[in-house]
């Protein structure tokens, strides 16, 4: 192994993890006020709605007195800030309330749909990363040629197709015209559905249910491809331009003078520097991707949080909208913290003493 060229300047090894832990603590602490404000905003936006939760939770033939009693019971007669305080207190105990429409606890509804959405989002992120890296490298490889202009034009074409059009498009081609892949739900009827963690792919593997595993995987191909392909063009373009930037720097020329192969220069010097801007874009994009799952879930009737959220919106089911909205927000914050930690690991410039 080569000796560390900057032993005194850059923090490495065990102390690097201490630095990352410090960043994590700081980020989690700043996330708390954000979540508080978001929850307050969610609470206020949904309270100005012209729907009466008390009347909705009672049968239609309830008397005015009964509705009033329910209002008092639900705390709707108190001032808004007091209502928010009560709601927040319960939230911290893990109680987001009861769904008016489904007549179930919101926490259990979210708990049963969130794993499906996470599964979808994570695989889609992997797909997006693979397509993005491969496409970016290819765009860089053909730089300065005629093919570049064609590819560049093509990438704008791709940028104009959001995930929800891709989902419909792939569904039409592979589901309807060629009928090679399933496109509704998470499993075909008749398959056993093991429940251990809620993550279907993991559960079916753990319980040794190989046929369920492959069936679930088939159901995920189209939605994950749609999400992944839609995200990849922006990654491609950033990777390409950061590679172009990196190749302007002297260290590339110097590596050439040292007689390194082009492949080695690309991997050890070019890509190592160019991956950083790409990674920080991925942080933002993956947050958006998590929101994009909503539409893809609706199009593929995939039983995740997106379908729950839209059902809730159609039925004006406030507790679910609040709970699911907050869950989406937490997901985005978690993704951005994870990406920031990765950034710290990959970028020694940020770990200077």
């Amino acid at each position: 192994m080569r000796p560390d060229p900057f032993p005194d300047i850059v923090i490495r090894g065990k102390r690097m993890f201490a630095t990352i832990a410090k960043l994590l603590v700081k980020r989690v602490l700043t996330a708390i006020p954000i979540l508080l404000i978001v929850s307050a905003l969610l609470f206020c936006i949904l309270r100005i709605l012209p729907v009466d939760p008390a009347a909705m939770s009672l049968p239609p033939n309830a008397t005015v007195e009964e509705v009033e009693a329910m209002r008092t019971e639900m705390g709707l007669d108190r001032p808004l800030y007091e209502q928010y305080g009560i709601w927040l207190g319960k939230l911290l105990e893990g109680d987001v309330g009861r769904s008016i429409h489904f007549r179930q606890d919101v926490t259990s509804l979210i708990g049963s749909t969130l794993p499906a959405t996470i599964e979808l989002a994570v695989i889609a992120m992997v797909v997006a990363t693979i397509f993005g890296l491969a496409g970016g490298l290819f765009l860089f490889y053909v730089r300065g040629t005629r093919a570049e202009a064609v590819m560049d034009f093509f990438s704008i074409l791709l940028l104009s197709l959001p995930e929800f059009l891709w989902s419909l498009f792939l569904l039409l081609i592979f589901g309807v015209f060629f009928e090679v892949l399933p496109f509704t739900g998470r499993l075909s009827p008749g398959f056993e559905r093991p429940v251990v963690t809620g993550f279907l792919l993991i559960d079916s593997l753990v319980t040794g249910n190989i046929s369920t595993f492959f069936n679930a995987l088939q159901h995920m191909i189209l939605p994950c491809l749609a999400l992944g392909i839609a995200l990849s063009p922006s990654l491609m373009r950033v990777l390409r331009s950061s590679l172009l930037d990196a190749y302007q720097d002297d260290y590339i020329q110097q590596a050439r003078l040292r007689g390194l192969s082009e492949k080695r220069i690309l991997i050890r010097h070019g890509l190592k520097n160019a991956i950083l801007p790409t990674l920080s874009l991925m942080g933002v994009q993956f947050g958006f991707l998590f929101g994009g799952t909503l539409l893809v879930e609706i199009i593929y009737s995939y039983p995740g949080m997106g379908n729950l959220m839209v059902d809730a919106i159609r039925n004006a089911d406030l507790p679910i909208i609040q709970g699911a909205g907050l869950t989406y927000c937490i997901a985005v914050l978690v993704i951005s913290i994870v990406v920031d930690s990765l950034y710290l690991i990959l970028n020694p410039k940020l770990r200077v003493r």
Partner: protein
Amino acid sequence: MRPLPLWLKSGRVQTGLVIIFILAVCAIFAPHLAPNDPNEQNLLSILTPPAWADGGDSMFPLGTDSLGRCILSRLIYGARVALTVAFTASIGAMIIGAFFAHIAGYFGGWVDWLIGRVVEIWLSFPPVILSLILMVGLGTGLRNVVLAIILVDWTRFCRVLRSEVIVLRRRDYVAAAQLVGFSHWRTITREILPGTLPLLITLMSLEMGVAVIVEAILSFVGMSVGSETAAWGQMIADARQNIYEAPFNLIAPIFAIFFAVFGFNILGDGLRRTLDTRLTQTERT
């Protein structure tokens, strides 16, 4: 005749403008172009295929939907909603975003900190989720769709423009303006704004594409304009229900959305290449 300005010579800008022009003509002259009333239901001929296919009816060139409404007419009328939202929402988001970006970048300090935190809170929501929640709060209707998109997307402008303003305010001519005694307002509008304008225009063109997509998404889940107004997202939702019987009904609105978004994107890309002074000459060609 004067020669065309540089940005108009770009093939990309021309392509984008032609596409937007076509859409604008469809939107403005919709009553003259559409072969049928977009809301007229012909329950005797539902889900007819396009005119060129077997069983097609020349009265409905692109076929009919599940209520027997003419697909082509609805597509043409749908351009009205899409373009209205694209223009008004992107102008609104631009004004709010640019205002806060210039204030934050110019004054710095606690103003910048505060605006930065607000943007951070906004970005902790996936845009789709935030716009849906806003639509729940605001209620459906064209005006509220525009409002929701403005309230969600002003941060796109704010984030990008702020860093541009920070670069520009360190320029000598800004310091000179301040020395001469220009007010802050005058320095921002006369000295900094002309410098951020190219980026602003580019971002606005891209935002129009985003607005078309968001409107389609909202009307797809039934949270946009009412059902009496034809919108592309609604057409997709309707066609999704009858995907086996009439797959073509899905292709038409998908293509319309793609066509519009592509027009705005290619225009934005062309403008970026020709207007951005920091791009090198090689990247521009």
